[in-house]
């Protein structure tokens, strides 16, 4: 039976790759491309790495795996919390592969904190702080430290010490490559290495062409280096989870809801949603996830259950004004995007951004628009997938939810009956 090496590269846009290839910046990546094996494909809404990779790992939509963002809320008592892999309530590819008696090695995939006890190795991604608690089995932490493996770069360096930031990015890439070199000799059927540094660089430098060119040149060298270790009998799948574009401006949803009389606070200058007034109709979490203040669900719920649909439609009507004014692309109802046992936890309304206007929560702001130190935002329809030797479905005819089934098929593992992924191979 075949084995599969997955190189996931966070937030690398299909369009950027094609233009860099055209410019001759990524000759090695270019050499991997076959006509039918390189596609532009879709991420998920909200377009966030935690949601996207959770969908990839489980082959399920967020309503069926329970991850909707990097921050979420428990409605009663109202609590904001940071979801981790504990909140990912569906079996991942790595567990399915383990259950099938095969061995897996997985490095750095978002939402694998804390590491799951797979048959093999799991090293958690950037929601972990220390290597010793980010690895399964525990004894490999020391080896990883020895080879200079780091969990993540410090993103704040991009703003205060740029040369230190680039140095960390370089070291992180070296560490990832060294991890492959060190562990690829072990027995495995599915090996996945995730590169996060691309997302970090794109967030701060997507608008600086020279820096982007130089970084992607280094990335091309890194990919080439990794490929030198991959055994000939393994298939290779490369993919990103979303695209990226420059931010023209940020749009703050909660001040907008306040202006429309939908969100009210007990204080004049609120710092957080904990200061919401019970008379609130709707509030938002980043990015564009809107919740109704529903009685019986929310701690201070004011909307009677029987009025849910009517009130939601009224809120949607108000939000449509943003579509008319070119501020957002579309207003979605949760059941249009999600299904499954965690649909109740999903936002009631989801805003799809247009490229260039990054949707933020902005609870502590009064103004509707602004700018920050973040220069790049995620895009929904510009992720890439490159599967050597395969004929993939047409551009943008599948999403990150669909890929898991094809991976299992390649490994000769029966797809679980509740997996909704419909595959990406023609």
């Amino acid at each position, binding site marked *: 039976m075949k084995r599969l090496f997955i190189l996931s590269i966070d937030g690398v846009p299909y369009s950027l790759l094609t233009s860099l290839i055209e410019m001759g910046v990524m000759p090695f990546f270019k050499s991997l491309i076959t006509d039918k094996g390189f596609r532009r494909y879709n991420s998920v809404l909200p377009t966030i790495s935690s949601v996207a990779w959770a969908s990839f790992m489980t082959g399920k939509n967020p309503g069926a795996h329970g991850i909707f963002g990097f921050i979420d809320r428990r409605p009663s008592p109202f609590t904001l919390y940071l979801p981790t892999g504990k909140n990912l309530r569906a079996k991942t590819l790595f567990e399915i592969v383990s259950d099938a008696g095969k061995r897996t090695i997985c490095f750095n995939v978002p939402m694998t904190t804390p590491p799951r006890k797979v048959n093999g190795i799991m090293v958690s991604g950037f929601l972990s702080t220390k290597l010793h608690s980010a690895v399964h089995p525990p004894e490999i932490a020391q080896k990883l430290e020895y080879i200079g493996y780091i969990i993540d770069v410090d993103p*704040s360096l991009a703003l205060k010490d740029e040369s230190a930031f680039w140095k960390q990015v370089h070291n992180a890439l070296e560490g990832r490559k060294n991890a492959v070199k060190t562990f690829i000799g072990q027995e495995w059927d599915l090996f996945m290495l995730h590169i996060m540094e691309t997302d970090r660089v794109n967030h701060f430098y997507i608008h600086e062409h020279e820096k982007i060119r130089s970084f992607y040149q280094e990335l091309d060298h890194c990919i080439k280096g990794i490929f030198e270790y991959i055994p000939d009998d393994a298939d290779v799948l490369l993919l990103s989870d979303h695209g990226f574009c420059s931010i023209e401006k940020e749009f703050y949803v909660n001040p907008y809801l306040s202006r429309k009389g939908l969100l009210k606070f007990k204080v004049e200058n609120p710092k957080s949603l904990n200061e919401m007034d019970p008379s609130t109709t709707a509030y938002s979490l980043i990015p564009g996830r809107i919740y109704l203040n529903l009685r019986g669900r929310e701690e201070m719920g004011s909307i009677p259950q029987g009025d849910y649909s009517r009130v939601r439609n009224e809120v949607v009507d108000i939000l449509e004004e943003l579509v008319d004014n070119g501020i957002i692309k579309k207003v979605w109802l949760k059941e249009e995007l999600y299904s499954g046992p965690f649909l109740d936890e999903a936002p009631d309304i989801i805003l799809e951004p247009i490229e260039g206007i990054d949707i933020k929560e902005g609870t502590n702001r009064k103004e509707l628009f602004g700018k920050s130190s973040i220069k790049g935002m995620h895009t929904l329809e510009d992720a890439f997938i490159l599967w050597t030797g395969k004929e993939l479905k047409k551009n943008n005819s599948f999403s990150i939810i669909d890929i898991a089934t094809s991976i299992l098929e390649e490994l000769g593992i029966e797809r679980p009956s509740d997996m909704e992924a419909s595959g990406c191979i023609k």
Partner: protein
Amino acid sequence: MNRNEGFVVWFTGLPSSGKSTLAQRLKDELIKRGFRVEVLDGDVVREHISRGLGFSKEDRDENIRRIYHVAYLLKRNGVVVITAAISPYREIRQEARELLKDFVEVYASCPVEKCIERDVKGMYKKALAGEIKNFTGIDDPYEPPENPEVVCETDKETVEESVKKIINKLIERGYIEPTDEDVYTEEEEEIIKKRLEDLGYI
């Protein structure tokens, strides 16, 4: 900590600062984790153990001494004790800390204006009207702890956030084991929050 013994979570704070609410919620959480838990609530203690004591400094100190002695006996027998009394004076809290040893001081911090607004038992109103004397925060002093193990800013945090802080401290001190729900210590959570903020993700 002797594994056969319990430990003590000692709340201190102004009247209506949220001590009793946090104590009850913490009790529920610890019971869920399999502990035997007793809450020594200031009002209940005054009704049963300290009946007859007033609100002079001497009487207040005597009240606290009784509380920490009962806490000591319960803790010695493997019970987790949560005290929820104003305990306004540093010196007597220090005495309790020294006797009890496995002692986690939690400061329910809340501006007095906010406590007056809450006025759970209507006592601030009476104190402000001059109907009762020696009321902590109005005409009797409150000495905030200088180095409490946990500070819960009850005017800014939700009850769940405050309880999580306390639980994280108890894990850090080795008094309780982390469960599946406890992925981060408080310090780790701050690191991750900062990272996500720097990336504009939260």
